[in-house]
C-alpha cells in the first residue's frame, strides 16, 4: 500500500510533522497483551472492589435489577457500533428508539418533550439552569441545599464564569425539605429559576406544589431534578415544573463506579427552541412513509457554533437505549410495582433501624432512601461492623453537610434482601443489646 501512494517507508507518512515535533522515544507503555491477560488484569482490579458485598448506598447511584434482555439487545453491533444518526436513511433503528425514549421520558416526568440525553444528572442541572436563564433573560438561580451536593458542585463550576450567580436555599431541619420561608425571602424578580430535587438528597419528597406557587408569582421557572428515576413509578411527576432534569441510571444501568449514566432534560413544548441537546422528530420520507431524523439542529453547536444552546455533542445514546429497553420491559405496571417494592424495603429498613434505637431526623416522607442517626454507636462503627458482615452501609452525610455528621443516608431497593436489611439494623445495636 505504501508503494501505491508513492512512499518508501512509513516514516514518509509523517512528513507533514516537523521532525523536531516527532517523538524520539517510543511510548513507555508495555507491549500489547492478549485477551486473557487483559481479562486477568481487570479481574484482579475487580477483586480489589465490592464483589460479594450487599450495598445500601444510594445518593445518586442506585442498585436495581438489570434484566438480561437489556444487554442482549443493546450489545447488538447495529446499536453498539453505530454513530450519531446524522444520516437518517441509514439510522432509522436508533432514531426510532430515541423518539421512543423522548416519549417515555415525557410520559414519566409529566413534561411535553424530552431531549435525546445529557451526560448525566449532574450536568443536566446546569444545562437546565442556563436554559432557564435564556428563557427568562434573568440570571440568578436559587438552588436547594437538598439538591445532590455533587450536582451543586457541578452547577457551581459551570456558573461561576457565566455571570450566573447561584444562591443556596436552606432546608428545614425538622422535615428535611426545602425551607419555604427562605425561598420566599430570596425570590426576587431577577431569579431565572429555582432548582429543587425530589426526592431530595435526603430521600425526602419535596414540596414541589407549594414551591411552584411561590416561584410562579415572581415569574421565575421551576427546575425539578431527580436522581432516582424509579421514584417516578410511584410519585406524582413534577408536572408543574417548567424544566425537569434528571438521571436515569436506575433504569438498567448498574452503578459502574459512577458512569456512564444518562441525564435527561424535559420541558414544555413552548420552550423547545431553548432546549440543549439532540432531538429526534417525526417526518416523512420521499415516498410519504413515516420516518425519523435529528431535528431543530439550529439550536446546536455544529450549526450555531458560539450561539448554540449548549456545547454538547456526543451524549449518552447507548445508555439511553438501555433505559428505553428497560422502560419497555417494565412497562406501565412493572415500573409501578418496582417502585412499590422499593418503598416497602426502605420502610421496612426504617422500622428495623428505629427498633434498633436509631433516629430518623427528618419527618418528611421518603421513597427508597432516608437519613438515619445511630444513637448507640458512632456511625463509623456501625459501618465498620457492617463491612464485617459484607454489607456496605449508608453514606455519612457529614461528608457534604457538616451539621449532619454522624447521620447516615441509607438506601434500600428491590435488590436488598430482608436478611441484609436485618443484619444491617443489627449493626446499630451495641453488642449484647436486645
Amino acid at each position, binding site marked *: 500500500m505504501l508503494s501505491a501512494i508513492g512512499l518508501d517507508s512509513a516514516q514518509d507518512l509523517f512528513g507533514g510533522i516537523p521532525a523536531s515535533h516527532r517523538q524520539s522515544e517510543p511510548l513507555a507503555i508495555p507491549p500489547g497483551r492478549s485477551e486473557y491477560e*487483559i481479562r486477568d488484569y481487570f479481574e484482579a482490579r475487580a477483586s480489589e472492589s465490592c464483589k460479594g458485598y450487599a450495598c445500601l448506598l444510594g445518593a445518586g447511584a442506585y442498585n436495581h435489577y438489570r434484566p438480561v434482555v437489556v444487554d442482549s439487545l443493546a450489545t447488538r*453491533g447495529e446499536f453498539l457500533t453505530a*454513530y450519531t444518526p446524522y444520516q437518517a436513511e441509514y*439510522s432509522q433503528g*436508533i432514531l426510532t428508539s430515541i423518539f421512543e425514549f423522548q416519549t417515555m421520558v415525557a410520559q414519566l416526568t409529566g413534561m411535553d418533550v424530552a431531549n435525546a440525553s445529557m451526560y448525566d444528572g449532574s450536568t443536566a442541572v446546569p444545562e437546565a439552569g442556563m436554559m432557564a436563564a435564556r428563557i427568562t433573560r434573568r440570571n440568578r438561580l436559587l438552588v436547594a441545599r437538598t439538591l445532590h451536593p455533587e450536582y451543586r458542585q457541578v452547577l457551581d463550576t459551570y456558573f461561576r464564569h457565566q455571570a450566573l450567580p447561584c444562591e443556596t436555599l436552606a432546608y428545614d431541619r425538622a422535615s428535611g425539605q426545602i425551607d419555604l420561608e427562605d425561598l420566599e425571602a430570596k425570590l426576587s424578580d431577577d431569579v431565572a429559576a429555582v432548582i429543587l430535587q425530589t426526592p431530595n438528597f435526603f430521600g425526602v*419528597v419535596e414540596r414541589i406544589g407549594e414551591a411552584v406557587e411561590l416561584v410562579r408569582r415572581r415569574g421565575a421557572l421551576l427546575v425539578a431534578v431527580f436522581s432516582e428515576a424509579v421514584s417516578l413509578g410511584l410519585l406524582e411527576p413534577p408536572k408543574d415544573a417548567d424544566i425537569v432534569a434528571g438521571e436515569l441510571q436506575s433504569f438498567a444501568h448498574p452503578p459502574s463506579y459512577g458512569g*456512564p449514566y444518562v441525564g435527561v432534560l424535559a420541558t414544555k413544548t413552548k420552550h423547545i427552541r431553548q432546549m440543549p441537546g439532540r432531538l429526534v422528530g417525526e417526518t416523512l420520507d420521499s415516498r410519504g412513509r413515516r420516518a425519523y431524523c435529528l*431535528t431543530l439542529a439550529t439550536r446546536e453547536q455544529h450549526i450555531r457554533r458560539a450561539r448554540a444552546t449548549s456545547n454538547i455533542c456526543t451524549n449518552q445514546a447507548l445508555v439511553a437505549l438501555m433505559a428505553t429497553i428497560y422502560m419497555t420491559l417494565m412497562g406501565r*405496571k412493572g415500573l*409501578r410495582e418496582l417502585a412499590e417494592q422499593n418503598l416497602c424495603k426502605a420502610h421496612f429498613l426504617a422500622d428495623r433501624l428505629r427498633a434498633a434505637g436509631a433516629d430518623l431526623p427528618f419527618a418528611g416522607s421518603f421513597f427508597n432512601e432516608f437519613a438515619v442517626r445511630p444513637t448507640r454507636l458512632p456511625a463509623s462503627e456501625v459501618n465498620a461492623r457492617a463491612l464485617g458482615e459484607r454489607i456496605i452501609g449508608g453514606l455519612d452525610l457529614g461528608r457534604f453537610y457538616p451539621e449532619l455528621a454522624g447521620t447516615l443516608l441509607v438506601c434500600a431497593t428491590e435488590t436488598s434482601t430482608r436478611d441484609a436489611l436485618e443484619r444491617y439494623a443489627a449493626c446499630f445495636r451495641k453488642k449484647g443489646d436486645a
Partner: protein
Amino acid sequence: MRRIRPHQTQDEPLIFERSSPGKVGYQLPPLDVPAVDPLEALGPGCVRRDIEGFPEVSEVEVIRHFTRLSTWNYAIDLGMYPLGSCTMKYNPRLNEAVARIEGIIDAHPYQPEALSQGMQRIQVTLERYLADITGMDAVTLQPAAGAHGELTGLLLVRAYHDSLGDARRVVLIPDSAHGTNPATARIAGYEVVEIRSNSRGTIDLAALEAAVDDNVAALMVTNPNTLGIFEQEIGRVAGLLHARGAQLYMDGANMNALVGIAKPGDFGVDVMHLNLHKTFSTPHGGGGPGAGPVAVRRHLEPFLPVPRIRDTAAGLRYDWDRSLSIGRVRAFYGNFGVLVRALAYILAHGGDGLRNATVDAVLNANYVRKGLEDRYDLPFSAPSMHECVFSDARQAKRGVRTGEIAKRLIDYGFHPYTVSFPLIVRGALMIEPTETESKQELDEFVAAMQAIADEAESDPELIRRAPTSTRTSRVDETRAARKPVLTWQPERGRGNSRG
C-alpha cells in the same frame, strides 16, 4: 461492484402502538418484607395514578421490537464507516466484556476507598498512559465527552489566569474548528474571535499575530486540524501565545494521527482533551457515551477538577483538598465504564501497537486520497494525516452536491463520510477510514466513490434520488423542523402505525 443486495427487513410500529393493556415484559421477585400503603407512606397528593401511555408489551415483543429496529441501522460491525473527524474504528468485543466484570460494573461511587483500590488503580494507570501519549504532566478523567473536556480545559485556563490576577476575555478559534469549540468558549464565559485559515488550510500566522493581545486567554487549535493537516507552525503558534501570556488549547479529536508519533506536550500545547470514543475505540453506541479526559502541563495541574488520586502509605486515596481546583465538572469520577474500555484498548495494543495503529490510520487515509484525487477536487494539497478532505467542486458543476454524493454512497453499502465540514471547504467530503479497515474494504470504497463520480457525469438524477436501497428513502428534514413532532401521541399514532 456488488457490495449490497436487496433483502427484506421486518417492519415495526412504535412500541406504544404494540401495547396491550396488562402486558409486562418482566417479573419481580415476591416482596420479602411487609407491604406498605403508598398513600399512607407518601401522602395522597404525592402518589401518581398511572404512567399514562407507557408501554405494555411482553418480553418477546421487546426482543423483536429492538431486534427489528436494529436491522435498520448501519454500523461498524457491518462495514467501513468513514466519517471524518469521528474515528470510527473497530470496537473490540473484549472491552465490552471487561467493563461488565462483577466488582467493576457494580462498584458504587461512594463505596469505601479501602474497597475501591482496583477502581482507583484503573484510573491512575489510564491517567499515566494518557500523559505519556500526550506528553503532558497530568490528566483528569472526569469529562464525559470531547465538548465537556473542552469546557474543562477552558475553565482551567480561566482559573489559571484568575490565579495570576490576569482575567482575560477572549478565546481565539480558527475558522476550520469544530462547532463545539466556539460553543464551549461561550459557556466558559469567553468571547470568541475567529482566526482565518491560510491557503495551505492551516492557521494564518499573520492573522493570529494580529489577534493575540493581553485579553486573549487561549487559542483552541485542532491538530491535525479538521482538514487532516498537521499545523506545521504549531511551535511558532505556541511561541506567539506564550509570549503574550495566552495558553495553547489543543482539541485532541484527531489524536489518531499522532499517538506514538508525536506528543502535543512536545510542541507547546498547555492543555488538551482526548476523545476516548474516537482514538481509543470505545463504542459510539449511536451517539455516546464517550469520555473526554483533559491533559495539562504542570502549571495547570493545581486547577484540575476534584478529586485527584494520590498514592499514600495507606494505598490510593482521593484528594479533595485542592484550593485552586475549578471544582467538579461531573458527579463522581466521569464515565468510568468508558475509561475501563479505553484502558483495555491500550493494554491490548501496547506502546508499539498504538504507534502501528497510527501508521496504518495515516496510511489508509493517504491510500484513499490517492485513489480519489483524480476524481474529486482536493482543495488543500498539504500532506494528509489520518483523514482527507475533498470538495464537491467538480460534481457541483453537474448540480450534484456533497450531501447527495453521501446519500448515494449508501446505495453502494457504505456509510457516508462527514458532509459539509469543515466549513472552510465549500461542499466538503471529509473521509477518515481509520486503521482497522483492510485494503479490500478501502478498495471497495474507492471504487464506489469513483463509480459515483462517473454517475455524476452520466446520470446526476440517479444521485439526487438516492438512497433507493434502504427501507426509508430520502428523509424530509425540513418538514421535521417546520412543525416538530417530538413525542408519540395516541391520537395521531394509530393511523400510520406501520407508517
